[in-house]
């Protein structure tokens, strides 16, 4: 236990320790910038946290570089954005009935009527209080669950079981994301297919490079993800604006009456509701692919069912705001559980956290991070410890710092946000397009990056127009190389046994579950 505390202590100090051993507040400051940016971006309809993270990542990398020193400032800023955006989205939802982020949609149901009744301040403060508390709750779950899961996985699961686990995650993700699971599955498979380009680890040279040696190391990751997630969304939005399908705002834009503050008695009364919402959000968040909107919906429904006055929901009760905001914010921390323990991203925000970690320095997520190597000092040489674990606790520390900023500055910013929520899309979209293309050019080897981003933007555009959810594509694309290494390893390590995946009961159960999910998807698709 001493060792755990030693590592936690090292992790905390690592955030505040500069390269020469002096005090640095840079990561803390970057977290603050991130939180403020996140709250702002969250409050602009049409923008979301992952969007801002996508654009911020290349900018941050060009400022701080790729070295190990860059990890904390960059990651801190991204975590800040992720957390800030979860609270910011509620403001326009309450004031103008236009959710700033998609997951704040349900907040309009009770938040807007509250504002209409002249309780706008109360509604915003309720949203902030439950949002931040929900987020903190799920962070605690992350801090405890991620190391525990990682250690268990590493002790119990061998190569075949880890392969089966990734197959199961991908099937699960396809099954739960979006309205058409089979389409999601196809999207995922397509993503896995494009990731086959490049190194095959066979020793026989790279594959599918179409004669371009530049593709030998695979497609440039950041450009590909920017293209498919961000630029394609810009294309779709531009088209919508042109076709006038874009429903600008369902309100007249007038700022409602702010009204009185939220009292501490009211806050205390919300705690049970927040706990329920946060638990639902944490549970949903720890499963890959389900996401914030589902968590908010489930939480809202369960709060309504538990309420003594269910008919009041939708007319402006604080309990409705509490239910949605605590749940959708609790997703963000819990989403990092599969990321930090297994390297499996569960939503777009997590995708960018993983991208940042892969681009910068030598830290990488995965079970090896949570090895509690005894700390030993060798005279005149070096200290032996698991540096990855220190970094992991450093990341946890920055999340706590982000929470602190969210409690303080986040609350202040939310109060004055109303005016800022009205930047028109026609201004935002060209800016986003330009920044992402520049990012692809500078970060990923010039024209190859641009070309990749454009091709992936086209893929994303087609997928969106065909109503195929993008997330399985991205996650298939990111996870396929890991899966290939595992499957290839499991096969050769078994001595070339053709039934290598079916020899272990744990792998068998996970594969059976995957087959069940696939079958269910087919049956569902037939019905509709």
């Amino acid at each position, binding site marked *: 236990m001493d060792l755990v505390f030693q590592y936690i202590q090292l992790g905390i100090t690592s955030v505040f320790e500069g390269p020469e051993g002096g005090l640095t507040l840079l990561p803390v400051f970057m977290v603050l910038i991130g939180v403020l940016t996140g709250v702002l971006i969250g409050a602009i309809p049409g923008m979301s946290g992952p969007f801002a993270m996508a654009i911020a990542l290349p900018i941050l990398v060009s400022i701080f570089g*790729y*070295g190990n020193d860059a990890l904390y400032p960059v990651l801190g800023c991204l975590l800040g954005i992720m957390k800030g955006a979860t609270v910011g989205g509620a403001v326009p939802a309450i004031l103008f009935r236009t959710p700033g982020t998609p997951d704040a949609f349900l907040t309009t149901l009770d938040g807007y009527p509250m504002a209409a009744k002249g309780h706008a301040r109360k509604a915003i403060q309720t949203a902030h209080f439950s949002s931040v508390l929900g987020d903190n709750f799920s962070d605690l779950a992350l801090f405890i669950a991620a190391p525990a899961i990682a250690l268990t996985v*590493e002790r119990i699961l*061998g*190569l075949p079981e880890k392969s089966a686990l990734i197959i199961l995650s991908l099937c699960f993700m396809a099954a739960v994301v979006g309205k058409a699971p089979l389409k999601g599955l196809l999207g995922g498979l397509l993503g896995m297919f494009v990731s086959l380009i*490049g*190194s*095959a*680890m*066979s*020793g*026989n*040279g*790279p594959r599918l490079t179409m004669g371009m*040696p*530049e593709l*030998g*190391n*695979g497609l440039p990751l950041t450009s590909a993800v920017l293209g498919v997630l961000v630029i394609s969304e810009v294309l779709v939005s531009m088209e919508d604006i042109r076709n006038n399908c874009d429903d600008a705002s369902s309100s007249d834009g007038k700022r409602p009456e702010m009204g009185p503050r939220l009292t501490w008695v009211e806050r205390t009364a919300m705690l049970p509701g927040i706990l329920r919402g946060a638990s639902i959000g944490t549970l949903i968040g720890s499963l890959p692919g389900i996401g914030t909107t589902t968590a908010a919906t489930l939480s809202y429904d369960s709060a309504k069912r538990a309420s003594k006055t269910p008919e009041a929901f939708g007319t402006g009760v604080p309990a409705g705001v509490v239910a949605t905001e605590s749940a959708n914010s609790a997703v963000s921390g819990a989403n990092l559980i599969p990321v930090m323990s297994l390297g499996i991203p569960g939503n777009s925000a997590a995708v960018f956290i993983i991208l940042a970690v892969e681009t910068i*320095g*030598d*830290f*990488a997520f*995965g*079970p*090896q991070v949570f*090895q509690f*190597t*005894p700390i*030993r000092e*060798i005279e005149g*040489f*070096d200290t*032996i410890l698991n540096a990855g674990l220190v970094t992991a606790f450093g990341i946890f520390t920055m999340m706590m710092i982000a929470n602190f900023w969210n409690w303080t500055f986040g609350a202040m910013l939310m109060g004055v946000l109303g005016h800022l929520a009205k930047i028109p899309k026609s201004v935002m979209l060209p800016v986003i397009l330009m920044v992402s293309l520049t990012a692809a050019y500078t970060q990923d*080897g010039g024209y190859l990056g641009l070309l990749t981003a454009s091709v992936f933007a086209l893929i994303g555009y087609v997928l969106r127009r065909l109503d195929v959810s993008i997330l399985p594509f991205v996650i298939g694309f990111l996870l396929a190389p890991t899966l290939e*290494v595992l499957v*290839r*390893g499991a096969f*050769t*390590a*078994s*001595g*070339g046994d053709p039934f290598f995946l079916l020899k272990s009961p744990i792998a068998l159960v996970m594969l059976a579950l995957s087959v069940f999910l696939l079958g269910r998807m087919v049956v569902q698709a037939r019905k509709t």
Partner: protein
Amino acid sequence: MRKILTMGAALSLLAAPALAEWNPDGPIRLWIGYGAGGGTDVQGRTLAKEIEALRGWKVLPENKAGEDGTVMSAQLKGEEPDGQTLGFAITTTYDFAPMNSDNLSPEDFTYVTTTAGSQMAVLARAESGWETLDDLKAAADAGEELVWANWGTQVEAGAEIVARALDIDVNHLRTKGGRGALNALVSMDANVGWGGGVQKPLVEAGELNILASAETSPVALAPEKPTLQDVGIDLNLGYQYIITGPAGMPDEIRDEIAAVVAEILNNPDSETRQFIEKQYPPAPILTSGDELRSQVMTTYEANVNMMEALAE
């Protein structure tokens, strides 16, 4: 007469740097043939930093990992040999890996200089209790399934040669770089593996044991352990870290870059040198120019013969 000639040569050598001072026209791209965080990467990046500090040349390191460094070398081959695109990988990339590729040959490159030599060793987890290759054989004979972690074709062939010499069966696991092999050992996906130098902290922490050295002499971390050759296995998997350029680089550029690297690595305060002393002891290995070129060519021949012998 002879004396005068020698003196003249010595003088011209002294004067050479001043006369042939070559400076790049813009930034130098240093392509690292292995992934971030490995021994090649750390060395390449520190060296880039120090070249910049010493000469004011802007050096931009970039990872191009995969296929024993050949993902990088395949791209390097087609670049201008003007000294502004350099590759940093290991000798295996040039004296072994081209064998498996139709598009690559050791003739495609200019060999600038080596920087350090490997500390190639056979590793096992300490908790397995294995101390020597005999322990490994005993475990295999007792029915334990052996999985050997390798990061490339050459070391996998090496593992097979060891297994045949010990008359045991091993299954192979291909990992990403030397770091991947260590991760596979620590996470128990493999129970024996190769380490080229990155194993140092884990061996010192008592997590891993060195069973034997795969160099021509014992490795610094375990001087008491025999080499493979000592136990009758004719195998030397030692390699060097090496800077290269595309074929056709003018000699004065090649020698100038080699000289800059030598100046840095001969300085006891150099960060790169200190890293090498720690990870790849005892000291940097600086072979350059034509001597290095003939070393690569000779080893390539030997490796082709080894693989042919293995295939029989």
